[in-house]
C-alpha cells in the first residue's frame, strides 16, 4: 500500500515537472498551430476595454503583428488565442506553460529573470511618482514618509522601497491598489500623496479617467525617475529556440515599419500620451 502510494506520488511529480519541460514551446506551437498569448485586459494604454467594450491598446496591435511575423518564421498558419492574464498570473502561467508568451506590460527585472526569459524590449519607460498639484509642487524627495499608492504585483513596490533606502530617506507608507484607475482616483480625491507605476501607464490612465496631467494641471509627475522599465515578451526559461523566434518576429516588425505605425498610434505626437521614440532616455537597470 505504502509502495503504491509512493509510486503514484512519484508518477504525479514526474508528470507535473519532467515530461513537459523538455519540449520547446516552438515545437508545441508548431504542432498545435495555436499561439496562446497572455494579455492583460485592464491597463491603458497597453490593453484595455474602451467605453464600447472593445479590447484596444498598444499591446493588442503588437500581438496581432507578432502572430503574422511568427507565422512567416514558423511556416505554418497560426491561430491566435488570447488568455486574460492578471498581473499576478502573467509570470506563473508562462512558467507552467499555460500560455505560450505573455505580452502584458511586463517589466524585465532581475528577479523575474530568475523565473522566465524575456525577448528584446519592445517598449521602454521609467517610473516616477504622480502627485496632486493642489498639494503643491513636488520632487521625489518630498515623498519620504508619505503615503504612496502602487498597483499590486507591479515591480514598483520593491523598487521604490529600495530607492528610498539607498538615498537614505524615510521609507514611504505603501498602499496597494488592484487597479490603476482606482489608484489615480484615490490620488485625485486626496486619499494618497502619490501614485507610482510606469509613466506611460499612469499618464494614460489619468487622462482616460478625465484628469489633466502636466505643469499647473490637476495631476503632475515628479521630474526624477527612480527606476527604469523595459517591457519584454515573457517566454519560458531556458527555451532559446522559442525566444529567438519571438525576437526575430519583433525585429521584423521593427524593419517593416509596423512597429513605428503602432508606436505613433499610441505614443506619437497626436496621441494622448506622447513619448517621442528614441529620445526616451535609456536608464540603467535597477537591481531587484
Amino acid at each position, binding site marked *: 500500500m505504502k509502495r503504491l502510494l509512493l509510486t503514484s506520488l512519484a508518477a504525479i511529480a514526474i508528470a*507535473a515537472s519532467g515530461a513537459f519541460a523538455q519540449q520547446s514551446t516552438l515545437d508545441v506551437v508548431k504542432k498545435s498551430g495555436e499561439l496562446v498569448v497572455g494579455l492583460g485586459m485592464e491597463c491603458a494604454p497597453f490593453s484595455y476595454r474602451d467605453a464600447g467594450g472593445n479590447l484596444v491598446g498598444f499591446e493588442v496591435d503588437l500581438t496581432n503583428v507578432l502572430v503574422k511575423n511568427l507565422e512567416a518564421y514558423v511556416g505554418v498558419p497560426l491561430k491566435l488565442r488570447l488568455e486574460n492574464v492578471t498581473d499576478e498570473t502573467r509570470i506563473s502561467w508562462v512558467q507552467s506553460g499555460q500560455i505560450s508568451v505573455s505580452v502584458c506590460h511586463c517589466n524585465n527585472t532581475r528577479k523575474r529573470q530568475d*523565473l522566465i526569459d524575456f525577448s528584446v524590449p519592445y517598449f521602454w519607460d521609467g517610473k516616477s511618482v504622480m502627485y496632486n498639484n493642489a498639494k503643491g509642487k513636488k520632487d521625489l524627495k518630498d515623498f519620504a514618509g508619505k*503615503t504612496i499608492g502602487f498597483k*499590486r*504585483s507591479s515591480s514598483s513596490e520593491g523598487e521604490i522601497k529600495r530607492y528610498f533606502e539607498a538615498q537614505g530617506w524615510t521609507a514611504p507608507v*505603501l*498602499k*496597494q491598489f488592484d487597479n490603476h484607475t482606482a489608484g489615480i482616483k484615490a490620488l485625485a*480625491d486626496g486619499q494618497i500623496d502619490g501614485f507610482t507605476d510606469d509613466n506611460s501607464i499612469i499618464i494614460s490612465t489619468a487622462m482616460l479617467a478625465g484628469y489633466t496631467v502636466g505643469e499647473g494641471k490637476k495631476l503632475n509627475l515628479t521630474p526624477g525617475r527612480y527606476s527604469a522599465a523595459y517591457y519584454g515578451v515573457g517566454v519560458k526559461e531556458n527555451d532559446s529556440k522559442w525566444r529567438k523566434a519571438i525576437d526575430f518576429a519583433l525585429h521584423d516588425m521593427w524593419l517593416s515599419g509596423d512597429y513605428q505605425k503602432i508606436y505613433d498610434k499610441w505614443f506619437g505626437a497626436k496621441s494622448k500620451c506622447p513619448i517621442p521614440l528614441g529620445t526616451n532616455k535609456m536608464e540603467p537597470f535597477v537591481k531587484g
Partner: protein
Amino acid sequence: MNFNNYVFAAPYFGWLLRGAANTVMISAMTATLALLVGIPVGILRQMAPAFVRVVLAGFITLFRNMPLVPFLLFSVFVAPDFFLQCTGKAIPIGFEYWLFIVCVALNASGYIADIVRSGLRSIPEGQVQAGRVLGLSPRQVIFRILVPQAVRISTPALGTRLIHTMKNTSVAMVLPIVVDSLDVAGQGARIAGECFAWAEPLVFAAGTYLVFSLMLEALLWYICRNPLLTGREYDAA
C-alpha cells in the same frame, strides 16, 4: 510545480505572519462591532413598537442580502465624493481600513440579528404570561426568562456566524489598503505578485484559516459545554 524557496525566507515569511496577526485583529474588531450592533437590533426587532420593528426588519434584509465585494467596492469608491459633498472636507486618509471593518461588521450584524431574533421567537409565549402571573415584573421576565434561554439557544449559531465572518475578512485584497495592515490572504496575493509563486503563500493562508477556525470551534464547543448554557442546572433544580 515550481517551489520557490524564498517564499518562506525573509522578508516574505514576516509578511505572512504579520498578515495572520492582522487577520486576528480585523476579525476581533469586526466580531465586536457586529455583536454590538446585531444583538440590540435582534432584540428590538422582536420587542420594540411596530414602526421600529419595520425599520429594523429593513435593516436586517438590507445587510443580510448585501454581497460583500460589491458592497465594499461601492462604499469605498463612492464614499469620498459623498463625504466631500456632505461636509465640504476631504475624507480622512486611511478611511478604507475602517470602512472595510464597518462594512463586514454590518453584513455580519444582519445575520446575528436574525439569529438572536429566532432565539427569542422560539420561546413559547406562554412562558412570558406564566412569568407575569407569578408576579414577575416585565424587566424580570426579560432578564430571568427570555434572555437566558435565548442566549442558550442562539450561542452555537452565533459562534458559527462569527467564524464565517472571520473567513469573510479575506476579501480585503480587493480594496486599497496600506500593505502593512493587509490580512493573511492579501499578503498571500502580494507575495504571489512579488515572487510569482501562488501555491506556497496560498497554502499558508489556507492553513492559517483552518487553524483559526479549528481554534474558534474548540472555543465554541467549550463555551457551549458550560453548565450555564447547556441548562443542566435548570434541569437539576
